[in-house]
């Protein structure tokens, strides 16, 4: 492979990682945009999502990398896996909000944020205790189809990841821009008190933000498994931190910003890891974050907090 081919290959890899981080970043941004709360439980909702996805695939008799599906069975299994995972993690997110965070809604200070850290550790330990500490093989039912792009290899699974992530982000954008509840979400993010006085039930809006964000984290967890062919109770920390960084990089609270930030972090991780060394990827990612925050504190696309005129 020439240097250019290596670069091209890392762009392909980076876009897949970026899709995963973007989906994760959206959950941070949706919740922050409305509550100004950094939801650290999101890290491990993502991790639990990858195990729910694993379990769902196992129900279809898939365990290792041996079983390959094509055509309708493949589409059906994937659709079912995404649907089950996203509904389950969405429900977990709603449960966390309803029972653990809502009682703290009007408590000033870091109580709610600390709670999200606590929930994150509970989920982490629940999986450790029930599933065990060793990594689990994650089935990949996709045919090993690959296309040559220059000297780089584009596998079917990358294409699938891109398509799924793009569809989910388009659906979210449509929801937020065009539907009544989506508009209520934007209004609440921009001025919660005014939104309430229009008759918006703010509790419902907050619940929707948790559901959507957590469902996208579930999709991201499934993508993690498909991409790396394993999952473990440990995966939440690294991926979650990158998703969070992506949200801040793009401008936390800003939906397109989270998508952009995710793709940038994914590309930096892949290309930087190739050119300078994998061990340096974290250093580069967080150096970029620090630089962006020094020169553009509100992130690339702006908007730190709900603005009140």
């Amino acid at each position: 492979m020439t240097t250019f081919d290596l670069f091209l290959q890392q762009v392909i890899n980076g876009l897949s990682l970026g899709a995963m981080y973007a989906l994760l970043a959206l959950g941070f941004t949706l919740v922050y945009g409305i509550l100004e709360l950094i939801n650290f439980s999101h890290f491990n909702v993502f991790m639990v999502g990858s195990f729910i996805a694993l379990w769902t695939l196992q129900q279809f008799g898939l365990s290792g990398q041996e079983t390959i599906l094509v055509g309708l069975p493949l589409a059906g299994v994937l659709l079912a896996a995404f649907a089950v995972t996203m509904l389950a993690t969405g429900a977990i997110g709603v449960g966390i909000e309803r029972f653990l965070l809502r009682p703290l809604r009007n408590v000033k200070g870091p109580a709610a944020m600390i709670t999200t850290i606590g929930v994150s550790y509970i989920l982490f330990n629940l999986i450790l205790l029930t599933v065990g500490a060793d990594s689990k093989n994650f089935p990949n039912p996709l045919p090993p189809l690959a296309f040559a792009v220059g000297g780089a290899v584009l596998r079917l699974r990358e294409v699938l990841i891109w398509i799924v992530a793009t569809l989910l982000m388009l659906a979210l954008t449509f929801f937020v821009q065009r539907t009544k509840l989506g508009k209520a979400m934007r209004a609440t993010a921009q001025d919660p008190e005014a939104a309430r006085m229009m008759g918006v039930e703010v509790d419902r809006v907050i619940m929707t933000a948790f559901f959507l964000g957590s469902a996208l984290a579930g999709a991201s967890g499934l993508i993690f498994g498909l991409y790396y062919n394993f999952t473990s109770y440990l995966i939440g920390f690294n991926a979650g931190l990158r998703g969070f960084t992506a949200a801040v990089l793009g401008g936390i609270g800003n939906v397109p910003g989270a998508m952009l930030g995710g793709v940038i972090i994914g590309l930096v991780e892949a290309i930087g890891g190739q050119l300078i060394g994998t061990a340096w990827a974290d250093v580069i990612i967080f150096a970029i974050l620090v630089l962006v925050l020094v020169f553009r504190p509100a992130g690339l696309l702006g908007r730190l907090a709900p603005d009140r005129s």
Partner: protein
Amino acid sequence: MHDGGDTILRFEDVNTYYGDLHVLKNVSYTIGRGEIVSLLGGNACGKSTTMKTIMGVVRPVSGRVLFDGAEIQDLPTSARVRRGIAPVLEARRLFPRMTVYENLEMGAYTRPKGAEFAQDLDRVYALFPRVQERRRQIAGTLSGGEQQMVAIGRALMARPRLICMDEPSMGLSPLYVEQVFDIIQQINAQGTTIFMVEQNASMALSIAHRGYVLQTGQVVLSGTAKQLRENPAIREAYLGELQVPGAA
């Protein structure tokens, strides 16, 4: 005093607190259907708290708030909007990154989006041709006067029977102030009751039927607009017409 025969909103001995701070102290108001009632008072006397108490953002510790004869003091804000109360908030408070049209949609949030929505939209556009011109613009980029028109239009989209206005003339140029008060009278003439907090007392009393004067959370004076305009204490304190010799 209003005779109470056709009352739309009534406060009965309402007390509210912010923490330990006693804001409204045994406050009672009676707003008749079809009236424009103005609430006067200095800074931090409880005017905005009155508006927030009507909308359910502040809950009274004691006392009753009646709308159409039914107690509403324990209802959530959304239920009050559904019953027909809409706010025009202090400093307009449009959703700054949504379009003018989306802001109007938010005003109609509790209503189904059918034929009535289209009628209400036509009514707002007829009252404010400028709002129609700007309907695709991002609300935060409008001038203050234009934003106030959208804020009033947004309240009308709820098809309210009572509009609570908090400082509708604040920060507007004199030309816009005239226009806004004209529009308020028109809306009232079309059958909507207006309860208005306003710093600009002479303007407010020129269109109001009646008024209340709040001082440190208590109603100290009430009467018809004419009575209030002619009251020497009001003239001195709010209309700036009498200068006390030697006063700074």
